[in-house]
């Protein structure tokens, strides 16, 4: 694309937005934005398909729609091969997704697909997610796909219906925000710690009304799995979407993906042209130094209530601290743990389980702890098992389950007991998120694995690694 001398310098977000405008925004009406990829799952689609049926509409672009089942699906299998659904309603919801997608000719990665998984893990693995795309899903963690330089965001069920029927949504262009993290991370500090530090600094509403672009050396040196962890939690800072410009790391990711473009070189050249122009501007900027970031954990009831793991619980909202049974001024490391969950669209990829295995290897999960490890997709499960990681986990006494959202949202019945403290690699620590009365501490896979071994919240940097 040629750029005239008079064009304003554009950000990555500006470029992707502009490519997808079907009709422009005016004072009276929002822009109509074309959607390149519509990901769907069982939870937020039934009522949308009902609207299509009531109005006699069909799915405009089944070829740009991709389905899976992940939220209400059991992560255990009965001995007879049947699946222990939490309720008849959960099973009905899954069956309805499979029936609706069959009726409308939508490709679906159901029980028999080797690609079934958490929708935000599956999309990139297939190569369905690509740089420069607009991607939506009835799921707020759609922001994950922004790691590839896509404009990806969650929508509600009404808009799911809009996209099914028209392949477009109505939207006013959000403001832009840049989060710069300069420098290199210290040893033992992960992408999860970076995004928790960003949310703690920007606040849970800090990104409201904005699309974030993450820039700086810290993100440039991350692999795609780490970039997905960062973009995934943009919504926890209030932002609709988070993006990272495509670079050589991005391009390399797609080389062996089933749905990668046929003319790969041309596509790659186009992707690399999406990077923000040098002198583009943002409506808001936040800046952190990578060297200042430590392993982070949450102590309260929203993701902004996060602190360095070697710190003291700060004075904060009394109700939140009471719910968490945390005392201001006390060290958070050493707090007793009941359950450890490694999984969710934030941290359930192969790289996350490699980190966990490296810590768990040759050790045992503490007797007082239930450790639940849930791969993000069938592909992650296959790869982890090929590497023998599941044997390390099982030998240590951890559970190794079937892929799904599982304990992140607990819709399938994978929840804790009241008052349980769960160290979780997921994305939300709201009251009751992992079961009524359950206390969630968000953390990285390394912190979660270390805490599973010791039975208390533990800085993984203090755990000796197996050298064998």
């Amino acid at each position, binding site marked *: 694309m040629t750029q005239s001398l008079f064009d304003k310098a554009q950000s990555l977000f500006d470029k992707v937005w502009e490519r997808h405008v079907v009709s422009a925004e005016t004072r009276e009406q929002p822009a*109509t934005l074309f959607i390149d990829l519509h990901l769907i799952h069982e*939870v*937020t689609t039934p009522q949308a398909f009902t609207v299509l049926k009531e109005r006699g509409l069909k799915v405009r672009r089944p070829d740009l729609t991709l389905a899976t089942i992940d939220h209400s699906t059991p992560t255990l299998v009965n001995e007879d091969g049947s699946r222990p659904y939490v309720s008849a309603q959960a099973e*009905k919801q899954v069956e309805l997704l499979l029936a609706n997608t069959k009726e409308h000719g939508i490709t679906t990665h159901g029980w028999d697909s080797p690609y079934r998984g958490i929708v935000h893990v599956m999309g990139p693995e297939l190569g369905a997610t690509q740089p420069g795309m607009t991607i939506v899903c009835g799921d707020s963690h759609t922001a994950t796909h922004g790691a590839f330089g896509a404009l990806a965001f969650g929508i*509600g069920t009404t808009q799911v219906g809009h996209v099914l029927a028209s392949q477009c949504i109505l939207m006013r262009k959000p403001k832009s925000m840049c989060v710069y993290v300069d420098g290199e991370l210290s040893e033992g500090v992960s992408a999860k710690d970076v995004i928790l530090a960003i949310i703690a600094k920007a606040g849970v509403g800090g990104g*409201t009304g904005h699309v974030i672009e993450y820039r700086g050396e810290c993100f440039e040196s991350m692999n795609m799995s780490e970039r997905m962890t960062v973009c995934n939690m943009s919504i926890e800072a*209030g932002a609709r979407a988070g993006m990272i410009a495509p670079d050589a790391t991005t391009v390399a990711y797609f080389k062996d993906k089933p749905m990668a473009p046929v003319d790969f070189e041309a596509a790659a050249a186009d992707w690399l042209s999406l990077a923000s122009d040098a002198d583009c501007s943002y409506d808001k900027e936040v800046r952190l130094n990578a060297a200042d970031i430590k392993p982070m954990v949450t102590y309260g009831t929203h993701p902004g209530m996060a602190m360095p793991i070697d710190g003291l619980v700060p004075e904060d909202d009394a109700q939140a601290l009471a719910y968490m049974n945390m005392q201001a001024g006390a060290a958070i490391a050493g707090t007793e743990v009941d359950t450890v969950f490694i999984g969710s669209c934030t941290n359930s990829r192969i790289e996350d389980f490699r980190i966990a295995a490296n810590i768990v290897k040759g050790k045992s999960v503490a007797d007082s702890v239930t450790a639940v490890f849930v791969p993000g997709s069938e592909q992650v499960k296959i790869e982890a098992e090929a590497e023998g990681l599941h044997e390390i986990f099982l030998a240590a006494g951890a559970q190794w389950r079937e892929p799904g959202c599982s304990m992140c949202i607990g819709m399938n019945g994978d929840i804790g007991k009241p008052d349980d403290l769960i160290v979780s690699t997921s994305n*939300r620590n709201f009251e*009751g998120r992992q079961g009524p009365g359950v206390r969630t501490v968000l953390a990285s896979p390394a912190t979660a694995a270390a805490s599973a071994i010791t039975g208390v919240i533990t800085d993984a940097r203090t755990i000796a690694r197996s050298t064998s």
Partner: protein
Amino acid sequence: MSFPPFTTLTSQTLVLHIENIDTDQIIPARFLTTTSREGLGKLAFNDWRYDEAGDENDHPLNGDAAKACQILVAGHNFGCGSSREHAPWALMDYGFRAVISSEIADIFHANSLKNGFLPIVIEKSAHEWLLDHPSEEVTIDLEACEVRLPTSSGAKNGGTYPFKVDPFSRQCLIQGQDELDYLLRQDAAIKTHEASLNKVGQ
């Protein structure tokens, strides 16, 4: 789908003086296995409203007066969390038609407007007055884009406060119409866009 037109609304307020009320509080995730949008009002704020036996506790949301309130006033950053449209569905089925806060999360905000539920972000002083004065009768005038606080209450901030709402969404609300027909009428423009994609071989 359409909904009842929204022009002006006068009602007592129900105040939840809590910041960052998230969608897991508005309707817990375990209820999202539903395949319909009906009957979610009894599940609104479920984990705050019921005891272990499943009976209503003494939470303000359980009073008969509360259930007659059509305007919810909530602390800063209401509706953060997930994209579940079950949240505005549950609030509307409970009986609310509008929520007033000093900040409202993006996706919840968008979902609300698409269901005839009005999210209002109002200036801080008026928001604080509303938080401090539960059960006052307040008028929301969508035609004028104003919230009118009672002047008879003796409150020094009693008065009229403007709020912003997207003109397109406002028109849809006033007419009780959803956006799908508008999108479907753009078929020709969408086809043109699709044709341009095919040309570059995507």
